[in-house]
């Protein structure tokens, strides 16, 4: 397997605080690569730099052989690098279908069209419905995004990300705030997705992580302290000391 994503010595400081302190990591095509770490380890900041929301101070992000360190979010999405948000970031005043259809529209033709009714675009809507089907939200297509339950909003987050037709999907705590059946459905969805996509997963739910991940990187205070298969990471004494032990003891 070749590396789809390579991160080289990535650094980001907020004032005197090194939030990303020389991160090196690589994500192979087709794998589900989980990034775990205690709160404040800089996981979301890392995702923000990978997705282009935040510019790193130094270092490189190489995606599909291209240096995309300075590329904006739109360019990365166009290249197939999409993300979901930890704190749900939907278009609350628009319908579920419109939320997804906008993601389809972004990659299918110009949006500088001023006359034809976008809601009547059958092909766009059909593709949007497929993404909704995939996450199990098809029956809520007509509801406003703001009217969805928290779990449904997490599903919609995923549907929107999928509708961009990504090759690499960055998932920032997709299970946050969900439980029971909702979480199980999302885990099953990720199981299906990992068969056709490369996934970078940030997640606090350790059961889910060890169930899903092919490889795990452990981020502590902005540094990767260990990286490897779930078994290797579980056995790593540094990880146990820095992270897992602490969690289990709590």
């Amino acid at each position, binding site marked *: 397997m070749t590396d789809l994503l390579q991160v080289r010595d990535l650094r980001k400081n907020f004032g005197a605080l090194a939030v990303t302190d020389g991160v090196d990591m690589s994500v192979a095509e087709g794998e589900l690569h989980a990034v775990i770490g205690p709160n404040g380890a800089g996981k979301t900041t890392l995702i923000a730099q990978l997705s282009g929301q935040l510019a790193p101070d130094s270092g490189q992000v190489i995606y599909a052989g291209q240096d995309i360190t300075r590329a904006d979010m739109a360019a990365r999405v166009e290249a197939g690098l999409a993300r979901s948000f930890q704190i749900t970031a939907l278009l609350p005043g628009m*319908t579920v279908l419109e939320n997804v259809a906008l993601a389809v529209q972004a990659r299918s033709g110009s949006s500088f069209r001023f006359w034809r009714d976008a809601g009547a675009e059958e092909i766009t809507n059909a593709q949007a419905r497929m993404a909704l089907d995939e996450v199990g939200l098809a029956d809520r297509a007509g509801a406003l995004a703001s009217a969805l339950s928290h779990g449904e909003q997490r599903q919609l987050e995923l549907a929107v990300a999928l509708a961009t037709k990504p090759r690499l999907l960055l998932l920032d705590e997709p299970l946050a705030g969900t439980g029971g059946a909702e979480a199980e459905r999302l885990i099953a969805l990720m199981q299906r997705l990992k068969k056709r996509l490369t996934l970078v997963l940030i997640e606090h739910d350790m059961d889910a992580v060890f169930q899903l991940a092919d490889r795990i990187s452990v981020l502590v205070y902005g540094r990767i302290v260990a990286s490897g298969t779930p078994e290797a990471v579980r056995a790593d004494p540094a990880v146990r000391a820095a992270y897992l032990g602490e969690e289990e003891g709590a």
Partner: protein
Amino acid sequence: MSTSATRTLAPRLSAALAIFVVMAAVPPLALAVDDPFLMVIASRMLVFAIAALSLDLILGYGAMVSFGHAAYLGIGAYAVALGARWGVTDLLAQILLGMGMSAAFATVTGAISLRTRGVYFIMITLAFAQMAYFFFVAQSSLGGDDGVALQARSTLLGLPLEGDQTLYYTILGALVAIYAGLYRLTLSRFGRVLKGTRENALRMQAIGYRPFRYQLVAYVIAACLCSVAGVLLANLTEYVSPAYMSWHRSGELIVMLVFGGIGTLTGAVAGALVAVGLEELLAVFSEHWRLGFGLILVLVVLFSPDGLTGLMQRLGLRAPGLRNDGEGRGDD
């Protein structure tokens, strides 16, 4: 059936149609009661409805609160004065001239303003409008501070816009055409992107859009449409002055949207009608009419934040036989 959007659209469209039909009946009515001033007021209402509509595109749909939109009202008006000076008297040519000047000004100032957000955007649009204001104040050949009276109204396809009726229906025609165009635009791909940016710009970037481009294009379109109102206003008053683009005027346009409800188009039209109407009505009672105007504005903001549109919606939803699908927004 596409989405729930289509269901909530129909009422605002029919409300707009009703307004247009009523306004079309004003000239014969004014003639019947022999009150020509009625038509002058109604003309003003329609002109400001165009201006408010154009502002609604950026403020209501794009969440760009411009406090300098009247600049384009003034630029449109000066297009008439300049056109007349250069021997261009045709209304359509003057509209093109006004649009061209507005597009140029809006492209440059919009590109700069859109680098800011929130209250800074409000202030920077105000600053640019003030620059335009003082530019025309300094043009002594155009009357400077005092402005300049027009020799005659524009012509339309070679025919002079004589008689208040002809001008009135020209203005009404322009309003209906602009409403229809904007209505389509808000449903289009472009309109969706604009609304999406209003809802969450970060989300739009995360699915592959660069919001700046769409916001700037919307800003330029709004400027061009507002300049049409300026061209018509100059013809109505047969007078052009920098006062058209004062910051008070920009504020009044925002007030019209607040009255009518933002982000619905129909609310902009209704708001302009009510605001101009109130101004005339309250002025009959007292020269301190602004006091009453302010009081009514406070009441609207307190009790019907969505303006008239929201009020109508709530009344409509409470009426028996009308189903509420639980979706409060009237825009889409």
